[in-house]
């Protein structure tokens, strides 16, 4: 069994792409697409890395991030935040709220993979 990554994302095709490249790299990929229950899923699944989309149905990724950081059991989980809006504001907000890394869509597969590896190792 490989290392666990939790993918919180609602676009089915992006989920498929990320799952494909991460699985091929030896990760066990769990996916979750509902914003309201995402934080709980992080707590119960205790993944090594979380990939978190900023815009989710039900609840924004920023809110989820805030909750994760406030909870001692998940405060230290590395989070890679993805956003499709690509504004400076979003980047600042994500980093201030405690995102470990931040990337805008569209991303290069290799970069995502490198970031996930780095977060898991660091």
């Amino acid at each position, binding site marked *: 069994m490989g290392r666990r990554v939790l993918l919180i994302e609602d676009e*089915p*095709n992006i989920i*498929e792409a990320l799952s494909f490249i991460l699985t091929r790299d030896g990760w066990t990929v769990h996916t979750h697409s509902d914003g309201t229950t995402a934080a709980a899923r992080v707590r119960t699944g205790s993944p090594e890395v979380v990939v978190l989309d900023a*815009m989710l149905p039900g609840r924004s990724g920023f809110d989820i991030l805030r909750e994760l950081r406030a909870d001692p059991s998940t405060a230290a989980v590395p989070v890679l935040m993805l956003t499709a809006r690509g504004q400076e504001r979003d980047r600042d907000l994500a980093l201030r709220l405690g995102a470990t890394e931040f990337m805008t*869509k*569209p*991303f290069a*597969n290799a970069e995502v993979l490198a970031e996930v590896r780095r977060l898991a190792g660091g």
Partner: protein
Amino acid sequence: MILTFNILVAVSLGYVAMLFAVAFAADRRARAGRGGWLRSPLIYTLSLSIYCTAWTFYGAVGYAARSGLEYLTIYLGPSLVVIGWWWLLRKLVRIARVQRITSIADLVSSRFGKSPWIGAVVTLIAVAGVTPYIALQLQSISLTFAAFIEGMDGGMDVDFVALWTAIGLALFTTLFGTRNLDPSERHHGIVMAVAVEAVVKLFALLGVGVFVVWGLGGGIAGTLARIDASPIPMWQGEGGRWVGLTALSAAAFLTLPRMFHVLVVENDDDRHLAVASWAFPLYVLLMSLFVVPIAVVGLERLPEGSNPDLFVLALPISEGHGGLALLAFLGGFSSATSMVIVATIALATMVSNHIVAPLWLSVRGPDEVARDLRGTILLARRVSVAAVLALGYVYFQYTGSGVALSSIGLIAFAGVAQILPAMLGGITWRGATAKGAGAGLLLGAAVWAWTLFLPSFGTAIIPQPVLDQGPWGLAWLRPRALFGIEGLDPLLHAVLWSLLLNAAAFGLVSILTFPNPLERLQGAQFVNVFDQTGPARTWSRSGAEVEDLLVLAQRVVGHETALDLFQAEAEEQGKSGHLPDATPGFLQRLERELAGSVGAAAAHALVGQFVQGPGLSVGDLMAVADEAAQILEYSARLEAKSAEQERTARALREANDKLTQLARQKDAFLSRISHELRTPMTSIRSFSSILQEEGLTPAEARRFAGIVEAEAHRMTRLLDDLLDLSVLRDGQVTLERQEGTLAEVIDRSLLSAGALKGDLAVLRDPAAEALPVVTDLDRLAQVFINLVSNARKYCDADRPELRIAVQRRGPQVIVDFVDNGSGIPAPEREVIFESFARLSGRRAGTVAPSGAGLGLAICREIMSLLGGSITYLPGQGGAAFRVTFPQGVAAAAAE
């Protein structure tokens, strides 16, 4: 001409069929909005003639043969009312219109604080009083049949005639009187049929009269000589009985449910009363003109022991004038049927609104209120029609045909007259209270039943010893000599005591008790109806959910009427959409609309279920407590002004909000475009690089390439939509005017949206869709496609269903798309027509992503270009959209 039983039956049936046709045609004309002349003062006056029932048609002659000119009192009372109490009738008509009164029970109940109890008591009195009256009509019809078949072979059972008459009348009344729950309770068809019958009976009686005077009596002089010589005591009886009977018939004219119905409820215009004030007395004068000659000649010519109640018929028969006899028969038949029909409608309305509805409301919990109120009330009305006629038939069976026509009629008069003190007191005296009215009504009814109604059954209910010595030996309770006063005429005795005690109890208890706030308010409304600018507010504040109220209203007054009402109110308040604020004023208007269908008491209870907090505040009452007309007018003007300011302020506030919102929206719009473009781009970029790598299976490669293609399509669609929207918004579109039918456009849209193969069931209305339209059909189809695709994507029912309903309103075509899913939550309805307003619904499929959320924004732009609109329809269960657009010029010209 030889009349057989069968011919008689055939003629009656033919006549009834003619009435059906008249009623049907009048109803249709009225519904088509071409019924102006149906509501002329002439028709109104003729409809009042249901006062002249079979009792007056046949019975007046019998009455004259027994008691001389006393029969005139029956005509005198009502004539005095229409001439002398003109102002009172006008007040009643005005109150009924302002308060949406449906019946006399509704009037009294509404006046006394919308009390369900008062309504029920008045209804019970009316049913008890009118049942003998209906029996009387059945009796007259069966008697006349019997008169015809006398001497014919085969003793036909006349009961059978009465039974079938009752059944036939129930059918007619149900068809035309209870077809729908009309908020105004007006029945054009029935009023028209009644007017026709009024003409028939007048002609019939005049015909017989002319025949008797000039054919048998030897002209005017000869007839006068015969009258002088006749044994009838023309001026028999003491003056007290004359005055008493005149007053009684005047009271009954105002309180008989059927009279109240034609006089007040069916009245369209106060001014008709002015015509009726001379035309109605003229009508009854003509009706009474030949009564004495017929009685005198009948006594002379017909064999000893003939029933004088049948002289009108027996004279032509015995003289061998079959045709005239048939006319007389039809006259009597008309008198009987028209009375029964209107009386039954009036009673059925009262029973359903004041007995069934309150019971039903108290049995069901607030959650279930109005689930199917409309159906329940209609059913109750139909059952009541049958029940009232059945009661009449049973009474007819019970009393047999031994009682003279006129005495049954007077019993009924005295019964309903018990309503008079509460009614008159209610509209003239603000101090009158519900407790007072209830006490008066109950006491009066009890005295009437004890002294007149129960004794009318002979000794079957009240045994002889009780009649002679009083119950338990209490002599002062003897039915014929209350409080030991003997020697009075039994009828006069009963009328005097019942009305005296009734009025006394009403007055005394009213003085001793205190009206509750609603009673006070309604009292002021009724007494000062001409000084008011509008009904006072009975709701001071509201916690009501407007949508709940809409659902309630739809269930009571019907779908479209309710939507129109709410939309008009929303416009009045300066709001867009279908939902106004639940202001106290609106609650008041809504309650009044509902009252037109279910009566004031039930309407008040229904609205009350949805409104929290006290109905009336002290402040509201202050306005009522001492209003001089001037103060009222002044404050009304002030109120109008402040209402106007409020409207302006609201409009400004909305405009300001809109601007701020627009600025925010522009930012959000750009950010959303970025998101919507980057999302497909992400998949495309990611899969493109995966596809460049080695080691993919052919199946994987095919699938990934498919995703890339689908996402590329998505981007194209988004760009197309964006361009479309910006072009539409700039108004740079040229619209194509195409002719076609709505059905074609819907067919095309369903095909394009893929609704024909999915699991979405589409319910359509082919008849309504066969509508020619001239507009940009492609653009219209684009809107429809959007709505159908949305239903396919977001309808979350187990068996998704989309109903497409089409209707025409004037030059506008209205197409509703209603699905059976869970609908769109209220807060999100505000934004669905904005750009990128994609809701958090489920997604269909994984490969093909859903749209960008521009669909409804584009629809809105298109509809506004087509001169129409698209709105969200609240209160329909599922998601519901209403598309409205003009049908087009060419189609209107083609009509």
